[in-house]
């Protein structure tokens, strides 16, 4: 299996009373009251250094994503981040996992095709091309896309990008419903033909359908851990079987929050306040922002009435202690031994071959993040990284990186500029 570090790039010092004073971490947190650009610059550089450290430490991939007007993640163009990461990791067998540029709100979508092709060229064919449909907050609220049109735009943008990427494709006219381009002729085109495509989703069966139809990897991205994810992934695997596709675990990706320390007690001491910060402040989003009418298609709307209730229960975690997060495996945390066992168990249970781990959580400072990455890479990863490999090929990973990464040298923190 392949294991990648995911980074959200949160603002790490929101005020203690943030969630009482403000309506939301996303869309409308006032920049002038909460943030300053110098500090934001420091966080961008820390984020680069943390991801580069993870690459040096031996993780298989490094992931960034796109959000807008969001204090827990403000990489409005993940490809700006990915470009730096691609250039600085050319000596490493690490994948540049863009999770990624958001299709329905990028116009024209050939912009993403071009930027991804650039990343693939710069990195020598190490790109994983995430194709998110995007959250309601990003796409409908911040970028003004009509909710009921989001999924159709997404499907059209997806088809256009895949066609534009092909080396053997001559210039063509795209006469779509949402995009009309008379002369499409991409420069550059990606090395990989095509790069592996990952579809981040939140459980919509329409996204499963797209993944199955085009043989893409489906990634369930939620911050609520594998116990909640289990139900979703069971549904996904059932769907895969119905579509008569093989049960290759690498068809599936999953995001998990992970914290490692020398002992369970130390993990609680080091990380609890940052986990609290993440769930109290970074997840402080009003429910009515998530599903503006039409954001879910009719089928998903009918299916999800129960799930919304379940999510509300998980969001009701104000009183949770460290052990509550860990027991529910919303966070997998503790000593290396505890984390190893649970993560192995979770990955098997969910049948996931592309694991993403969130190793920087909420207010976690730079040094502690490096420590978490280091312990994870040295003490946890070796125990799980060979899972599935004897039986299944990871067809959704850059071809030149599919063999197991060689043991890397001791990682040293990069940059260090603060």
């Amino acid at each position: 299996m392949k294991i990648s570090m995911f980074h959200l790039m949160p603002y790490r010092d929101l005020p203690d009373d943030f969630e009482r004073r403000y309506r939301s971490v996303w869309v409308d947190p006032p920049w002038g009251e909460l943030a300053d650009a110098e500090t934001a610059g420091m966080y961008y550089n820390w984020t680069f250094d943390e991801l580069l450290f993870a690459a040096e430490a031996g993780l298989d991939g490094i992931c960034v994503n796109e959000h807008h007007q969001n204090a827990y993640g403000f990489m409005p163009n993940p490809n700006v981040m990915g470009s730096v990461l691609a250039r600085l990791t050319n000596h490493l067998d690490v994948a540049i996992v863009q999770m990624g540029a958001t299709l329905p709100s990028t116009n024209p979508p050939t912009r993403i095709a071009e930027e991804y092709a650039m990343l693939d060229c710069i990195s020598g064919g190490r790109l994983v091309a995430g194709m998110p449909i995007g959250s309601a907050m990003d796409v409908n609220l911040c970028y003004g896309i009509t909710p009921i049109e989001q999924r159709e735009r997404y499907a059209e943008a997806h088809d256009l990008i895949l066609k534009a990427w092909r080396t053997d494709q001559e210039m063509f006219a795209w006469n779509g419903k949402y995009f009309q381009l008379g002369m499409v002729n991409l420069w550059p085109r990606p090395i990989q033909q095509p790069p592996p495509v990952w579809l981040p989703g939140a459980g919509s069966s329409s996204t499963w359908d797209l993944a199955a139809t085009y043989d893409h990897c489906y990634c369930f991205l939620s911050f609520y851990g594998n116990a909640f994810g289990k139900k979703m992934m069971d549904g996904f695997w059932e769907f895969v079987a119905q579509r008569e596709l093989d049960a290759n675990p690498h068809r599936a990706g999953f995001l998990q929050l992970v914290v490692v320390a020398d002992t369970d007690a130390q993990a609680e001491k080091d990380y609890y306040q940052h986990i609290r910060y993440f769930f109290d402040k970074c997840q402080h989003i009003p429910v009515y922002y998530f599903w503006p009418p039409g954001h879910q298609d009719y089928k998903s709307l009918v299916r999800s009435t129960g799930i919304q209730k379940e999510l509300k229960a998980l969001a009701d975690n104000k009183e949770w202690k460290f052990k509550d997060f860990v027991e529910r495996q919303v966070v997998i945390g503790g000593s290396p031994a505890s984390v190893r066992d649970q993560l192995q168990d979770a990955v098997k249970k969910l049948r996931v071959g592309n694991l993403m781990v969130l190793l920087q959580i909420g207010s976690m400072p730079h040094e502690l993040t490096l420590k978490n990455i280091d312990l994870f890479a040295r003490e946890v990863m070796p125990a799980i990284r060979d899972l599935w490999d004897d039986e299944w090929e990871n067809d959704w990973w850059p071809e030149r990186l599919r063999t197991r990464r060689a043991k890397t040298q001791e990682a040293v923190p990069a940059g260090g500029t603060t």
Partner: protein
Amino acid sequence: VTAAESRTITVGVDRVASCVKVAGSGPPIVFLHGAGGLRWDAFLDTLAQDHTVFAPEHPGTTPGEPDAIKAIDDLWDLVLYYYELFEALELDSPALVGISFGGMVAAELAATNPERVSRLVLVSPIGLWRDDAPVRNWMITPPEELPGLVFYDPAGPVARELLTLPEDEAERAQAQIQHTWSLACTGKFVWPIPQKGLAKRLHRISAATLIIWGSEDKLVPPIYAEEFAARIPNARVELVAEAAHVPHLEQLGTVSALVRDFLAL
């Protein structure tokens, strides 16, 4: 409540199927509902006393036909859809009564082909925009805040009747799905700001027009009544006291008398 007859009408190249509720007798009125979908209410009953009321369901909002909305790409398609519906119902130039979102659609119909509309009644229509008096986006308004914007008396009987969901869990879920999907299908034409060029077209309307607004409307402020009246050549404004966004329900007697008198002229 009058027992309205339901007719399923299918029109257009893409065969869009929608239900039209019909009741009463007399000169025809086409009633265009608000964003939340059609609900046969006491206001429609009063109109049906001396008119034949045709109340179509906006494409996609008819139960069992959620995908009908896919054939209507934009406002232009929607306007043409309604003219084709008029043909199918054999309506030459009916009076139009539109509420909120339906008011915007009614104004578009009256502006595009003025001859197809004999009289026009707009009750708190959307469709215009002022930066100093923004229309609230009801689709992302906290549910607990919405009654205070829509109703003059959020605890009154009209609000209670509209806001009460069925007791039965399955029925309640179905009602919520239906409501959300209606907002989705109407929202398609107004997201994220309900101003799609109507201001440039209103001057074309030739039908005599009655504009009705609740003086306490906090969703679409009453200042917009003057914005509509200033652009429609033959328009009259009636502000209704002790009413907000649904004056035809909160002040049923006043508003239905205004409308029936206006249509009888």
